[in-house]
């Protein structure tokens, strides 16, 4: 069934988009991530312009992280204090991100920047995660105990604050900075940033695993809602019809993914996720290096009627 997307200005097959939403939802449920880094590229590959893809995926991620956050809230697995400090940074970062997005779009370099950020971020995070998963897998094979966590330089920073639910005593500076970075790249790349945020919170901020996913989902939810709003106001690029189809597919797929994820061991899960992230990054890298089919592109600057 063909449906015309009003903002993307493109007819698409409803079932194709629904299936894409479900597939990405499955993966995101399995790994406990938003899945934006898969959804945005997939939309770009089916012909939706990167700008519309990024803006519309933001609302899709907001939906899936809201349903996740509600579940974590009921389990009391969200640290409200930590989430609010992260959000201070997140909102600032998102505003900066959407502003940069608008500027890049006017310069005609938005598509390039989206592709470049994907290459840099995904290949880095992907290879780190893959190698870490590989090491962890080897360790469990050998039966060795994981190295004990020690405090690092981040814990020497001033402006410390006590986060009761997470039982940590931490400076607000790194927390706000992490929020800004995640908000910024989220707005430009159309990702929730959970797959970067969770490792950062665990390894750098030493947030316990009991509250890390729930709290990161709150940040994702609010930054993505805010990004949706800003993209809608400044660039008029949010395709609500596309977003709705993605949401319905995504939240359904996520439920089955979550069940599948429980059957796989943690190390293997990380290894798989690392591989997945890495392959998306490589896919974008290839796209940039090979000669494009057409060197010319046209952009309409609005019909004057």
């Amino acid at each position, binding site marked *: 069934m*063909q*449906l*015309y*997307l*009003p*903002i993307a*200005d*493109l*007819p698409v097959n409803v079932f194709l988009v629904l299936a894409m939403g479900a597939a990405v939802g499955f993966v995101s449920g399995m790994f406990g991530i938003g899945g934006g880094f898969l959804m945005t590229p997939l939309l770009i590959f089916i012909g939706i312009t990167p700008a519309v893809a990024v803006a519309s995926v933001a*609302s*899709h991620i*907001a*939906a*899936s*992280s*809201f*349903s*996740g956050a*509600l*579940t974590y809230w009921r389990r009391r697995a969200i640290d409200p204090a930590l989430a609010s400090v992260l959000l201070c940074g997140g909102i600032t970062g998102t505003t900066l991100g959407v502003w940069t997005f608008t500027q890049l779009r006017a310069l*005609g*370099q938005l*598509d*390039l920047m989206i592709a*470049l950020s994907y290459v840099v971020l995904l290949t880095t995070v992907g290879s780190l995660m893959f190698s870490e998963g590989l090491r962890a897998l080897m360790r469990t094979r050998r039966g060795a105990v994981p190295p004990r966590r020690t405090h690092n330089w981040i814990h020497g920073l001033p402006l410390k604050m006590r986060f009761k639910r997470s039982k940590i005593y931490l400076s607000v500076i790194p927390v706000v900075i992490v929020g800004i970075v995640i908000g910024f790249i989220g707005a430009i790349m159309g990702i929730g940033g959970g797959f970067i945020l969770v490792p950062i919170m665990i390894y750098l901020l030493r947030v316990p695993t009991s509250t890390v996913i729930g709290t990161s989902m709150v940040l994702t939810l609010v930054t993505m*809602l805010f990004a*949706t*709003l*800003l*993209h*809608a*106001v400044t660039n*008029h690029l*949010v395709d*609500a*019809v596309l*977003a*709705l189809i993605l*949401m*319905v597919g995504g*939240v*359904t797929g*996520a*439920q089955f993914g979550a069940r599948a994820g429980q059957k796989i061991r943690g190390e293997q899960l990380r290894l798989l996720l690392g591989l997945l992230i890495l392959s998306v990054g490589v896919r974008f890298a290839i796209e*940039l*290096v090979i*000669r*494009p089919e*057409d*060197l*010319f*592109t*046209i*952009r*309409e*600057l*609005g*019909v*004057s*009627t």
Partner: protein
Amino acid sequence: MRALLALLVVLLLGSAAQAERLIVSVSNHRVTVTPNYSGEELVLFGSVEKDATTPADRTAYDLVVTVMGPRADMVTRRKERTFGIWINTDYRQFLQVPSYLALFANRPFDAITSPEIARRQQIGLNNVRLTQRVSGDFADVVPNDAFRSAFIRLRTERGLYREDPSAVTFLTPTLFRTGIPLPAEVPIGTYEIEIKLFANGALVAKTETAFEIVKVGFEQFVATTARQNGLIYGLATAAMALMTGWMASIVFRKD
């Protein structure tokens, strides 16, 4: 005074009146695009009316139909290889060019008239005026300019620019018809049609008509709201996201 003016106009028109008159009509003056619209074809009918002053030997006519969609500014960008990757480097801005452009005729354009008249009357995609902004200046460039030809090629690939020198058929020596194909992603707005009649290479008559493309239904409502009420639209989308997420957490609640 007004009557005098009207008389003058009639007299002037009368003196300038040509030996032929064109009478045309399109099959539909208002095309509505619904969400499952996948393109359609309009039909333009017309006839050549001769009068007493028509030279008796004039029997063979040629016809050129130009369809122009709403005008818009467009930017064409060119990628070049920089540091091993392909980057948009150079660009040209096309000012107020038709978003849809179709040129139809009953035989090849160069057989209808001389290159000089073809250029002046903008017959053929190569002769249509596409104004570019070149470092502060406004000008159309030579037809084989890289940006101009890329622009026309890309629009043609999307079915938005087209020329077909065999689309017009003469049913009788004076009665003609042509189809106007409108692709699925046709821009909305007012479309102008110019019909030019040639005889022996000279322009003998000219007329104009128009049709309108409007989008209706939910999809158009969404597009309009997004453009005009960005804030409300954004809030509605955000609310929709929250609703979907909330509903999912209820539907799939395990405990």
